[in-house]
């Protein structure tokens, strides 16, 4: 990100100097900063509302129920007796509900346990599958994106939900499939 951002700034200024529109380039930069602020303000309310609802999901036990429902399915992938299973289902549940911050602690703990169970210095198939489950999004309700769409004036912010589900499932399948091909059956 260091190089990308510095590159963007330096290249635009240099190009502006060559094309003779450097003052417009600078003005555009400042305007961009301003619109960044307004954009965040625009979806702040919705985003806060969703964070509140998610806190209720956790407090009311919806999270726990989901995690119980998921653990048999996950047991088939990661092995029923893996010590990591509990953490994995908590991680997946949080990801599904779009609680990125809540997903990380159990996710990292699960990875540490999987790593302990894996006796090699190469990551094994389980670790790879678990990692790509976290790099592909499993989220059911794309709250942040919907909030941003509303802020930008969309009349149907959740209209994208079916394409999002399809895309999430297909891209996860592609990542897991690639993992299976690369790691084969061996553990």
């Amino acid at each position, binding site marked *: 990100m260091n190089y990308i951002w510095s590159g963007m700034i330096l290249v635009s200024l240099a190009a502006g100097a060559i094309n003779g529109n450097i003052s417009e380039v600078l003005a555009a930069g400042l305007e961009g900063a301003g619109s*960044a602020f307004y954009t965040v303000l625009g979806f702040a309310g919705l985003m806060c509302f969703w964070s509140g609802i998610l806190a209720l999901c956790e407090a009311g036990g919806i999270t726990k129920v989901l995690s119980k429902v998921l653990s048999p399915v996950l047991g088939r992938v990661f092995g029923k007796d893996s010590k990591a299973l509990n953490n994995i289902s908590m991680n997946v549940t949080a990801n599904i509900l779009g609680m990125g911050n809540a997903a990380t602690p159990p996710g990292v703990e699960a990875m540490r346990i999987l*790593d302990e169970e894996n006796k090699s210095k190469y990551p094994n198939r389980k670790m790879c599958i*678990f990692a790509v489950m976290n790099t592909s999004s499993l989220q059911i309700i794309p709250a942040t994106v919907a909030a941003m769409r509303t802020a*930008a004036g969309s009349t149907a912010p959740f209209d994208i939900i079916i*394409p999002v589900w399809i895309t999430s499932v297909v891209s996860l399948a592609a*990542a897991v499939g690639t993992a299976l091909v690369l790691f084969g059956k061996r553990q």
Partner: protein
Amino acid sequence: MMDFVVPILIFAAVGTCLFGKVDVYSEFCGGVEKGFKTLIGILPAMVAVMSAASMLRASGVMGVFAQQAARILPFDMPEELIALAVLRPVSGGGSVALLAEILNRYGPDSVAGRIASVIAASSETTLYVLMVYFGVTKVKHTKKVLFAALVGDAICVAVSIWACGVFK
């Protein structure tokens, strides 16, 4: 059906809390506070990326890039969408900012706006996630994992374009 998904979730969240004698109001407010902290967290990246992207566009460099990319790609894609596809796995804040730009510029319900929304909602900041998750392990050699994750991201972009075309 879609009109009911979100209301049902909200209803269930509040209902279960009330039923479970949870202090609903203060739990909700606590969640809001967390959400607000997240927002403050992404603001710096938003300012950085949106100002740099806007400079890049004003200087004409973005146009040149887009022309080159358009030659390779078999279909029309706004330049920002290409940038989003590339930036998504690398920078979370950066891609949120870029999505905001696309939504403001082309409109949230335009083809580009919808595709961008789907890309952003169906993928994660792959590099960051791998860094955090493999940070606690002893294993080296995570190239294969990175490759599998990036295949997922590439498929995500392709399927987003397709799915937005099918479900209008």
